[in-house]
């Protein structure tokens, strides 16, 4: 019944490795997001896809590459992991609306780079 599910929930990896986080939503939404929350709880948007098309790409290193095989999935691949990539990554989805989007978040993926 989980609306937005992401895996893995916890990930500990060494610097320089490549890792992926997967996300799926079963809400029928047409827009999906990746947000990053740092140790100070600051939450910042990274990417947004609408119907598999990239619509928001904030200033994110190109080591981060999102992939949306269909509108229900948005995966995040990270190359050459650095210590500063340690954070909680949240996948989210919404249905596009001119009156405002309510965003539904996954439970987060805790990434620790050592």
């Amino acid at each position, binding site marked *: 019944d989980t609306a*937005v599910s992401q895996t893995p929930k916890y990930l500990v990896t060494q610097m320089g490795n490549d890792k992926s986080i997967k996300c799926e939503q079963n809400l029928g939404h047409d*827009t999906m997001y990746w*947000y990053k929350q740092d140790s*100070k*709880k*600051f*939450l*910042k*948007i990274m990417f*947004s896809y*609408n119907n598999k098309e990239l*619509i*928001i790409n904030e200033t994110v290193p190109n080591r981060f590459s999102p992939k949306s095989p269909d509108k229900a999935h948005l995966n995040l691949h990270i190359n050459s992991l650095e210590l500063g990539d340690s954070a909680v990554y*949240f996948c*989210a989805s*919404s249905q*596009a*609306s*001119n*009156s*405002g*989007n*309510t*965003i*539904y*978040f*996954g*439970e*987060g993926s805790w990434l620790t780079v050592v």
Partner: protein
Amino acid sequence: SQQGEEDPQALSIQEGENATMNCSYKTSINNLQWYRQNSGRGLVHLILIRSNEREKHSGRLRVTLDTSKKSSSLLITASRAADTASYFCATAFTGTASKLTFGTGTRLQVTL
């Protein structure tokens, strides 16, 4: 930065008391939303107020919006221990309705 800022950063109250959190932002908005985040969990949407609305209620929640002052407040009445969480305001700026920019959050602690 367009990021909103919540005030206070942390708030500790006793059960039954009211909790008020404030949010300020810098540019014109389409709407403003409040979210709650329990420790170790994702964010949960609480309430959305549009730029042409001034007040909105949902259960024990009351949200106000003053676009002239670029500020919003979230009032939780008769707080409960289960309300302990971080609360974030998020703004959708005019022309970017699909992009929410989150504030820095208020950590609320409700004690018995």
